[in-house]
C-alpha cells in the first residue's frame, strides 16, 4: 500500500480545493465554523469526524448545493456559490445517501447522466463502456439499477459521478454500509482514480478506513478542524493502547485489557492460559465510531 502512496503524483504546488473561514449556520447551530482547508491537486484527502461534525455540509458547499453563511470556497478555480455551473462541470459528487431509479437499466442510468452533463451523444457508448469497466460492472450493463447490491449501487453511483470526467471527486461516506469485500474493492478503485490524476475528497467517521488510502487527513469536530496532516502524523499523535476483550469459557464474564501492541496481546493470552483459565476468545475491541473516535478526539484535544 505504501508503494502505491509513493507512486501517486501529489503536486503540492497547485491547490484543487481551498476553503477560507468557511461557515454555515442554521439558526444557532454552527454546522461548519470557520473551516480552513487546502487540498492539493492529485491528492486523496480524507475528512474524518463524527456524525454532525460538518463533513456533509462542507461537501454540499463544495459541490454547489449550499451557499455558505460566511467565508469562501474555491473548487478547481471557481467559487461554488458564484459560479455553480463551472464548479459542477469540474466536480463529481457522490452524496452519502444513494438513490437509484426503478425501471431503469444500468446503461440507461448512465446515459441519462451523460445527457444531463451535456456529454456529446457520439461518445456515450465508449464512455459508458469505460466507466463500467472501471467500476467492474460491465456484466451488469443491462441489469435493472434497483436490482444491484449495495456495493454495486455504490460503484454505479461512483461511475455516475465520473460521467463528465471531473477533476475533483467528492465522495461523502462512500464506504458506509459496505461489507469488507466491497470496501476493499472501493479502496482499490479510489487508488486507481488517483493514478488517473483526480483529486479525491472522501469522508468517513472511521480513521482506520481512510488512513490506508489517503495522502492527507483532516479531523473535524463540531464544524472545526482539529488536526490535519498525513495519516501517519495523525496516528502518531494518538495515544496507543488497544482494548482487548477476553471471553472465558463457562461464564458470561468478559475481561477488558488494554494492550499496546501485538506482543502484549500475546502476553495476555499466555498469562491467562498459564493461570489455567479456559480462554474462549481473545479479540481486539471493535474500533468503531465510539471507541476509536473518542480516542482520536480526546487525544487531539489534550
Amino acid at each position, binding site marked *: 500500500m505504501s508503494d502505491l502512496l509513493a507512486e501517486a503524483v501529489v503536486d503540492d504546488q497547485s491547490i484543487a480545493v481551498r476553503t477560507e473561514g468557511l461557515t454555515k*449556520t442554521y439558526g444557532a447551530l454552527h454546522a461548519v465554523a470557520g473551516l480552513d482547508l487546502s487540498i492539493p491537486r492529485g491528492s486523496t484527502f480524507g475528512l474524518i469526524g463524527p456524525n454532525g461534525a460538518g463533513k456533509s455540509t462542507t461537501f454540499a458547499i463544495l459541490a454547489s448545493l449550499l*451557499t455558505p453563511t460566511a467565508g469562501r470556497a474555491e473548487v478547481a478555480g471557481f467559487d461554488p456559490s458564484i459560479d455553480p455551473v463551472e464548479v459542477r462541470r469540474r466536480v463529481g459528487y457522490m452524496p452519502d445517501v444513494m*438513490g437509484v*431509479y426503478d425501471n*431503469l437499466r444500468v446503461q440507461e442510468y448512465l446515459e*441519462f447522466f451523460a445527457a444531463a452533463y451535456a456529454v456529446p451523444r457520439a461518445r456515450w457508448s465508449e464512455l459508458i463502456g469505460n466507466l463500467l469497466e472501471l467500476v467492474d460492472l460491465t456484466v451488469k450493463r443491462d441489469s435493472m439499477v434497483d436490482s444491484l447490491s449495495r456495493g454495486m449501487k455504490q460503484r454505479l453511483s461512483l461511475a455516475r459521478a465520473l460521467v463528465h470526467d471531473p477533476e475533483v471527486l467528492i465522495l461523502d461516506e462512500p464506504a458506509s454500509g459496505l461489507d469488507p469485500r466491497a470496501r476493499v474493492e472501493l479502496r482499490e478503485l479510489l487508488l486507481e482514480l488517483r493514478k488517473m490524476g483526480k483529486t479525491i475528497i472522501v469522508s468517513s467517521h472511521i480513521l482506520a478506513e481512510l488512513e490506508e488510502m489517503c495522502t492527507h487527513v483532516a479531523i473535524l469536530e463540531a464544524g472545526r478542524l482539529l488536526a490535519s496532516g498525513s495519516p501517519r502524523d495523525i496516528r502518531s499523535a494518538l495515544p496507543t493502547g488497544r482494548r482487548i476483550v477476553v471471553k472465558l469459557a463457562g461464564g458470561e464474564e468478559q475481561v477488558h485489557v488494554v494492550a499496546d501492541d501485538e506482543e502484549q496481546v500475546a502476553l495476555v493470552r499466555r498469562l491467562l492460559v498459564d493461570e489455567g483459565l479456559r480462554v474462549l476468545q481473545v479479540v481486539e475491541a471493535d474500533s468503531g465510531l465510539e471507541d476509536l473516535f473518542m480516542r482520536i478526539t480526546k487525544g487531539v484535544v489534550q
Partner: protein
Amino acid sequence: MKLPRTLNPVFARELRQRMRGPRAAIILILYLLVLVFIVQIVYFAASGGANRGAPSIETLAGVGRSVFHTLVFFVLGLVCFIVPGVTASAVAGERERQTLVPLQITLLRPWSILVGKLMASLAFVVLLIVATLPLAAVSFLLGGVEPIEVIRATAMVLVVAVTLACVSLWCSTFFKRTQGATVVALALVFLLCVGTFIAFGAQMILQRGQVQGRSQLLLVANPFMAVADVLDRRDEQLSASGASPFTPMQLLLEQRRERQRDSSTWSTDSGSGSGPGGSGPVVVPPRPTATVVVAPTTSGPPQPDAVPQPAVPQPAVPETVIRDVRPAPSNPILADRTAAAGFEPGVPWLSRVPFWVLSLLAFTVLSVGSLALAARRLALPKPTFS
C-alpha cells in the same frame, strides 16, 4: 430503443421508466373500460326504448350529442384525477428516492428538469385523451356532433391537463413526500372544479341572484366551465334524449352572454349609478323596467347623466339609443366604448371577452405561475437562512 438526439434528458428517462412494464397498459385498459361502460349506459339511457320503431334523425343526433358530452365530461373528470396522480410524484418522488441531489448538480437547469417532468407526465395523459377519440366516433355515427366541436373540446381538455400538471408539479416541489404533494394537488384541483362553484353560489346568494363583473372571475379557472363554453348547446339538450352533463354550466354561460348584451347596452345610462364605490357588481335591471330602474340606482351625483357623459349631449339620447340598439346585437361594442369612457360598471371589457378566452388566460397564468414557483423551489444553491 433509440431516442432522438435533442430530447430533454429527464423526459427521455421518465418515458423509459413509465412505459416499461405492464403498468401503463393496464391503466390505459382500465381507463377505456370505464369510458366504454359510461358510453354504453348513456347510449341506452338516451335512446330510451329502442324498440319503439325507427327514431327520428333529431333523436339520433340528440343521443349522439349526449354520448359525446358525457364522454367529454368523464374524460375531464378522469383527467382531474389522473393528472395530479401522475405528476405529484415527479419531484417529491425523486426527493424520496434520494435521487434529486445528483440530478440537481448536473448541468440541467431547473426549468429543463421541470419541462422534462411535465412532458413525461403529460405524455401519458395525452395518450389517454387520444385513446378516447375512437369512442367519440360513436357520436359521429349517430350525428349531432361536428368535427370542429370535437377538436375544440379535445384542445380545451388538453389545456386543462397542462394546467393541472403545472399546479401538481409545484405541489411536488413544495412537499417533501409524494403523499403530501398528491393530497394537496388533488385538493387544489377540487378547489378549482367544485370550490369555485360553491364560492360562486355563495356570492350569488349574497348578491340576491345578481352576479356579474368580477364575480365571473371565480368561474373562469373552472375546467368544467371552460370546456362547457367550447361545446355547442342545442335546445334538444333539455329533453331526455339529448341530456348533457354540461347543460347547467352552459345555461349559466348563456345567462352571462345575455347579461353581457344587457350590460353593454345598458351601461350607457346605468353606468353613473354603478353601485357603491363603483367597483361592486353591476346590478343589471330587468329589461322591461329599464328606465324605472335607472332612477333609483343613481344615488351618486345629482345629475348623473350629465356629469359622466360629456360626449352625450342630451340625457334623452341614451334612451333612444337603447331602444334602437336592442334588436341589433352588432352595436354593443359602440355602446360599451361609451361606457368605458364614462364609468366602470364592474368590469365592462371583461364581459365582452368570450368566456373560453378568459379561461385560457386564467389557465396560462396558473401554469406559468406554478412553473415559476416550482423552478424557484428547485433552484440551487438554496438561499441561506440567517
